[in-house]
């Protein structure tokens, strides 16, 4: 077991940031903490990286207790805090070199591990980190977190504010790292990234709502969701919300997701209703369920 969290709670003044959370991450697993801003993800990361002490509960990382064996943990984990902490006035190479030195290693020693990522930013190695684009900063931060070949890698919202292309590349990199035997705990507010993890914990307001593989979470969702489309989306949402049997209505990409209260729902009835409301180009079809749908119904 790489990470074992047992009934952890943490409060700041009145606010309960983390509320009796329990989960386990297996060796070599890519585990995702999925939840919006303020869900308590960062607090969990800080407890596991020994930066905070929980009010209740216990946790182990790589077999070490997060409170008592602080030194051992600090030697064996890599951590990339939110907002990619880098020295903006140091160049790419200087940043990497610095982190290598303080971890008592050299860039050459673990170059294999970071090679795939580093070659992408190497052309800019003399540029100050502050002048890099978001995607490149993210890659550099990952290199810095990997430079001492950690057993467990903690990535707190590594893709926030990064464009879809860089995000996609980043997840490919994570998969490769996982193949090298590194256990990865990653958090993200982007629900579409959940499906890229082996297992995920859906988390909101300090509580874990569900833990499972993304596929199981989707398969276990019992309600039927329909994609509805019409020319005037705004009016469509408005009218769907006034449909008597609606359970929930929300925009979802090019469609509106509609869930009915009754299992006996007949799409044709809805079609008629929408036609009467003067909608045109109406499409109603069963939707592919995503983690985001499940999350919104929790």
């Amino acid at each position, binding site marked *: 077991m790489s990470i074992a969290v047992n009934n952890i709670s943490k409060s700041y003044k009145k606010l309960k940031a983390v509320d009796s959370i329990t989960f386990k991450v297996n060796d070599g697993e890519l585990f995702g903490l999925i939840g919006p801003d303020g869900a308590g993800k960062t607090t969990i990361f800080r407890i596991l990286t*020994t930066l905070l002490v929980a009010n209740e509960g216990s946790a182990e990382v790589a077999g070490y207790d997060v409170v008592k064996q602080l030194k051992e943990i*600090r*030697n064996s984990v890599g951590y990339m805090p939110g907002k990619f902490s880098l*020295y903006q*006035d*140091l160049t790419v190479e200087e940043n990497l070199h*610095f982190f290598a*030195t303080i971890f*008592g290693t050299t860039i050459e020693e673990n170059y294999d591990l970071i090679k795939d990522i580093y070659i992408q930013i190497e052309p800019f190695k003399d540029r100050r980190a502050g002048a890099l684009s978001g995607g490149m900063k993210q890659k550099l931060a990952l290199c810095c977190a990997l430079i001492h070949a950690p057993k467990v890698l903690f990535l707190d919202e590594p893709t926030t504010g990064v464009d879809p292309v860089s995000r996609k590349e980043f997840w490919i990199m994570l998969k490769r790292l996982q193949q090298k035997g590194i256990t990865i705990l990653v958090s993200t507010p982007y629900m579409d990234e959940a499906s890229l993890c082996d297992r995920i914990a859906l988390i909101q307001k300090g509580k874990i709502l569900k833990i499972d593989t993304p596929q199981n979470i989707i398969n276990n969702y019992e309600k039927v969701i329909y994609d509805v489309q019409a020319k005037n989306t705004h009016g469509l949402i408005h009218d769907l919300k006034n449909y008597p049997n609606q359970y929930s209505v929300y925009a979802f990409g090019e469609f509106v997701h509609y869930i009915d209260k009754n299992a006996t729902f007949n799409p044709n009835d809805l079609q008629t209703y929408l036609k009467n409301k003067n909608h045109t180009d109406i499409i109603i079809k069963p939707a592919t369920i995503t983690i985001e749908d499940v999350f919104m119904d929790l």
Partner: protein
Amino acid sequence: MTIMKRFIGFVKKEFYHIFRDKRSLFILFGMPIAQILLFGFAITNEINNVDIAILDQSNDIETQKIIYKIKASPYFNVANQIEKESDIESEFKKGKIKAVLIFEPNFSKNLETKKVAVVQAITDATEPNVANTIANYTSAIIQNYQSQKKQSNSNQVKVEVQSRMFYNPELKSVFNFVPGVMTVILMLVSAMMTSISITREKELGTMEILLVSPLKPFQVIIGKVFPYIFLSIINAIVILTLGYFVFKMPINGSIFLLAFESILFIISALSLGILISTVSNSQQTAMMLSLMGLMLPVIILSGFIFPINSMPLPMQVISNIIPAKWFIIIVKAIMLKGVGIQYIWKETLILIGMTVFFITLSIKKYKIRLE
């Protein structure tokens, strides 16, 4: 070996930060020079049209000539002729005049017979710089008169100028400014710069990574403060050099002792800086705390600007806990009196005690976690 490498790596990084922030660097090195020049200029300030009074007890040809010369100079304005010595005090108290020149009785006669005559210049030393300058200018004018007289008369005579200071006879603050400015600068560079650079890492979030690394707290601290020890020493050298060459501030004592005491003070200021960084979460707070909590006491309570023995008692007591006070005493003793450690061991011990206290406290307070 690894430890040394880590340390060097850390210090190198810290120097990158310092040298890449051109504006701070300019302030760091420009400020000491500007301050020294500013204070130095204020002290050697020219005087112009200063009101003086004259008590001429002989009223003969020589004194008339001298008084005429003084009146003719642009520096003085003879506002008053007074009649008797007992009036001097009351003239000063009125506050209008800054000096009184007293010619002894039988001035010409003494010059003829004894070959020496005395002019006394009594100055109001509540403004010590002005008082000193007045005394110097008076001497200069009289010397000038004398040398003219010599040319016309081969007879060797001497007019002696005795100057006396009222109220602040030792002219205590004349050489105050070099030790004072040095103290302020060292405090500022050491405490403010370190506390800001540590809190900057907190703001950036890089502190989180440093904490989650195998570095021990004291390694982080030493790595962060070392560059500033270095910069502070350079600053001290710049200030002393300026003081010595531009303002003729003597260094009568041992330079090594001075260096040792300076480093001691720098370290105590650095540990104060670390202490500040442990209680502040933003660079702004750190700056305000250093300015308000350190700079003001250093300027006000250290004896740099206001003499400590003229402060109310409670303030005098408080001044004892200001490291700067002891440092200023030490620096003045070494530079002006030229004394060795045997005369200042007490102050040195106090400074060492404070430094140890601050270092212990700051290492204790430095958190290995985020809260």
